[in-house]
């Protein structure tokens, strides 16, 4: 008997010593691993809590929620996937930290017979094709959402409105897609884009970067921020410059701290992607796959435009 079967034997003995019914229930329930990005981010924290609530309601599966230290900890996320493969889970629902780097461990998971669901950020389609793997994507359309939010601004300003963009982390897929959405809106409504810079998703940096943009371009009329944290920093910079009410701002994510700013008109709009719902939808998709269905393509999840009128 080699060491691995020996250990498996001990494990089995342990399981058998449990009361039989409980053990069976435990064994029968499929296990779903939920791999998220940084749990330090409010969006993913919401997602995790929503997922746990949803699984409790469903009652027919066990959830292993996992997160990484920071948004850019790609290595850490790969390790999480590998751990889940070792633990022989039935399905993995993943919000990839990088649209390419995660493909190779996911391909390994697929080969190990694990069902896969991609949420939040779309994995690179070409790379997947190369490995002859298809993974269903359940998620919002960041680009479309960004455009929805930006359109509110564009309509308020009218053609020729002078705007700037605050981008997320350079290279982050959702950041890139949101910027694309902003750009589409700018093209459609013939806005005048004065400058576009990253503030790395951060409030303080957005505050600093935007005040400097405002000095360089005192005629800015509107700001498109890649997330709500940056939008808050922009609002504070506008206040500090004494231009409250003269410059319009839109954000993305719909975090709680942005609500009062929308209410008092300092932020025109944001888009709620329902982070909590997103993971729940992913888990539903995974359970369908475990049940034998084959899902492909993009299952779009709802987004909601938040403005003063909707709050």
């Amino acid at each position, binding site marked *: 008997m080699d060491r691995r079967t020996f250990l498996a034997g001990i494990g089995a003995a342990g399981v058998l010593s449990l009361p039989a019914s409980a053990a069976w229930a435990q064994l029968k329930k499929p296990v779903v691993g939920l791999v998220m990005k940084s749990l330090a981010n409010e969006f993913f924290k919401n997602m995790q809590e929503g997922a746990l609530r949803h699984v409790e309601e469903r009652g027919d599966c066990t959830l292993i929620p996992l997160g990484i230290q920071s948004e850019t900890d790609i290595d850490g996320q790969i390790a999480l996937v590998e751990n889940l493969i070792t633990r022989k889970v039935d399905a993995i629902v993943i919000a990839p930290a990088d649209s390419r780097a995660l493909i190779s461990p996911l391909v390994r998971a697929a080969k190990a017979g694990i069902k896969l669901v991609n949420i939040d950020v779309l994995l690179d389609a070409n790379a997947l094709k190369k490995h002859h793997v298809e993974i269903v994507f359940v998620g919002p359309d960041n680009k479309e959402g960004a455009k929805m939010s930006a359109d509110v601004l564009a309509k308020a300003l009218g053609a020729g409105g002078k705007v700037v963009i605050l981008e997320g982390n350079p290279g982050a897929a959702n950041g890139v897609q949101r910027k694309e959405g902003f750009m589409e809106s700018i093209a459609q409504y013939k806005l005048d884009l004065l*400058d576009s810079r990253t503030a790395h998703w951060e*409030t303080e940096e957005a505050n*600093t970067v935007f005040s*400097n943009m405002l*000095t*360089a371009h005192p005629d800015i009329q509107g700001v498109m921020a890649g997330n709500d944290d940056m939008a808050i920093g922009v609002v*504070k910079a506008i206040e500090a410059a004494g231009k409250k009410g003269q410059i319009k701002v839109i954000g993305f994510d719909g975090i709680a701290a942005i609500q*009062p700013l929308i209410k008092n008109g300092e932020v025109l709009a944001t888009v709620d992607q329902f982070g909590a719902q997103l993971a729940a939808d992913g888990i539903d998709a995974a359970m369908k796959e475990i049940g034998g269905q084959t899902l492909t393509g993009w299952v779009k999840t709802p987004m909601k435009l938040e403005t003063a009128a909707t709050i």
Partner: protein
Amino acid sequence: MSSSSSATVRRILREAGIGLALLAMIVFFAAAAPDFSTHENISNILTQITINLILATGMTFAILIGGIDLSVGAVMALCAVVAGRLLTLDGMSEPLAVALGVAGSLAVGMGCGAANGWISSFWGIPSFIVTLGMLNIARGGALQVTNARTIYDFPDSFNAFGTATVLGVPVMFVIALVLLGLGWLVLTRTVFGRMIYAIGNNEEAVRLSGHRPLLTKVLAFTVTGLFVGIAAIVYMARLTIANPILGVGFELNAIAAVIIGGTSLSGGRGSLIGTLLGAAIIGVLANGLILMGVSDFIRQIVTGVVIILAVVLDSYRARLARG
């Protein structure tokens, strides 16, 4: 010329070198970016360097005594969320909430600083490692306290202070400057300051002169922590939020300001005047490059080059001064 005045001249030269670099940078940007020298922009720069200036002032204490504090960014987040919780407690009068919030932030900052100082000095562990541990503890603590949520809705009087000005100068910057002045007095005019420089140069000689370096070291790190607590309050007043992931990487900016300011990383040499100039160089550079329309990536490269250049220049000047 007596040596005492020649030493003073050399010291002035050393700091003047950084001052000249700053001046050259200002002249350059004023010529290259027309909006640079407007009153509004200068006020912006002062606001923008305030937090880094406060953190770097505290950091100067840790570096002068021969240590370093990598935890300031994370501890600042912990201070901010604790203060945020206290500020938004239900059923409290506004002044009481503000007082409680400020006190909470300062207490958390000093507590973390004292822990850094005590653990590293008592067990003789490099502060680099201890504060790296504290970085994770504080960041995790901040996330735990808030459950990763952003705290907002602070009292109006608290938020108003963030944008207040006096004679056109941001109040927060004035406060930072006063704090820097106090720090300068402490370092140059008190027994505590004397001990910091002496320990930074030769801890064993200080011990064998009948002192307990441990106490001074713990106190120096506590001062660093105190300044972190103050920076957290300034951050919150300026942005009216406190979130647990704020301040990532702030420690590196603070260290850069201290080093550009001519303070030796091995301790014992340097001054807060240099730190002020160092923070100003970083702030002016970030502002000026954006006004010139330089792209984000090039801006990052230029900032890195300037940091290295400043340190090279400093070591060159030090060599000249030594003869």
